[in-house]
């Protein structure tokens, strides 16, 4: 659904007659055109997975991380401009550090989400800056309770059980809704996340991609880390196998139609 702003979209400090701020909506488009990122909040932790679209075979595997850590217990994945993400992560790190310096405890997830949301929103007020072209997924472990938030380019933020952003978000969302997230463990969620990323990936648009998978959970002692190699390998295998099975199913159906 594209609409032309025609004059009301030149500056983020301008409303349109029907109450929209087009620059913020255009920022959202930047997010929608980027690689998919999903977050799953389950019983004992949160899993983040990103479809890292590679534009060259010469890139070193597992380099150019798209999932970043702040304050040790906060994981940040995003869809959109990576450079904007880095700026936001820097801000989250500073906020988390300042909070810990003042209160001597780790900041809770809702506070981090609020600080980030307010920061992003500030960039939608002035014509001298542009809004951030990222949707950020924030994964956090508050004591024993896992939390997942998504912050949009408008600064709006909401807590989720499962969410998806980026190119394949429609496909991903449909898959996520089928899952029983409340009763899953992070190991199961990691496999499902991998499968969903693989199925949301559109081979016709971008051939090369790499899965990036991270979690914050009881198993990682409340720290946000990239998943251990064995979990990663298992998840990738599971994802690839599921894709093959889907392809087999499709072939069968075609035969039956004849």
């Amino acid at each position, binding site marked *: 659904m594209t609409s032309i702003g025609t004059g009301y979209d030149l500056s983020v400090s301008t409303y349109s007659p029907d109450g929209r701020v087009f620059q913020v909506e255009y920022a959202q488009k930047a997010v929608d055109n980027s690689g998919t990122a999903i977050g799953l909040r389950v019983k004992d932790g949160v899993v983040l997975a990103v479809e890292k679209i590679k534009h060259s075979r010469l890139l070193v595997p597992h380099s150019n991380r798209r999932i970043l850590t702040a304050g040790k217990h906060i994981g940040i994945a995003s869809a959109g401009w990576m450079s904007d993400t880095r700026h936001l992560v820097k801000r989250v790190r500073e906020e988390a550090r300042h909070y810990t310096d*003042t*209160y*001597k*405890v780790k900041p*809770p997830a*809702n*506070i981090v989400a*609020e600080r980030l949301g307010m920061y992003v929103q500030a960039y939608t007020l002035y014509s001298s800056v542009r809004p951030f072209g990222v949707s950020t997924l924030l994964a956090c472990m508050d004591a024993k309770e896992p939390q997942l938030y998504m912050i949009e380019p408008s600064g709006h933020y909401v807590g989720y059980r499962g969410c998806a952003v980026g190119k394949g978000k429609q496909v991903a969302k449909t898959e996520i809704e089928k899952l029983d997230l409340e009763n899953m463990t992070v190991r199961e969620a990691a496999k499902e996340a991998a499968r969903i990323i693989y199925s949301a990936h559109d081979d016709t648009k971008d051939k090369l991609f790499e899965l990036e998978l991270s979690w914050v959970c009881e198993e990682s002692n409340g720290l946000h880390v990239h998943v251990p190699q064995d979990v990663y390998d298992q998840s990738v295998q599971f994802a690839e196998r599921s894709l093959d099975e889907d392809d087999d199913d499709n072939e069968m159906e075609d035969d039956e139609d004849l």
Partner: protein
Amino acid sequence: MAQLKPGEVSLGTTIMAVQFEGGVVVGADSRTTTGTYIANRVTDKLTKVHDRIYCCRSGSAADTQAVADIVAYHLELYTAQHGKEPTVKVAASLFQQLCYENKNRLSAGIIIAGWDKVEGSSVYEIPLGGSIHKQPFALGGSGSVFIYGYCDKNFQLNMSKEECIEFVKNSVSLAMTRDGSSGGVIRLAVITEDNVERLLVTGDKLPEQYLG
């Protein structure tokens, strides 16, 4: 470290706080002096900074009141922003930041004690320099030096609420007898999950002591 300025009001003081399962008991004497004149003989040195978090103030009356007011403000803001009650640790951390960053301008020895959902009961002591010490019980003020021996001998972990009240009453009373800057009545506060109970022990009800 700032010395009290001439004419500045001092909380000479004996203050203490003891932790028990399910709460804390805080206690203090009630004497405020300007030099030799007792400016207030029924002072309340146990100041509420939040619903279940109290601080005991010793040193300069003005300094400790100012710091306690600032912390109370921050804790109220914290509750509004976080949607939940602050922990005693958070309160103590705020006190520490103020006391340490302004150590050259303040004369404040503070004990923070209270109850929260995360840790249960806790007692923190912040002496003059602005360091922070988490302890099962804490003593402070000029009168405290006279009762270290008594307290070390008579304190036990896992005392009951009633035993803690007796312990605080006896200790503060002994200190008040020997320290010229402490005296008056003993004020106590018992902080538990459910409520804060304020107690008063007047001069005629002080525990038995050898007084000559």
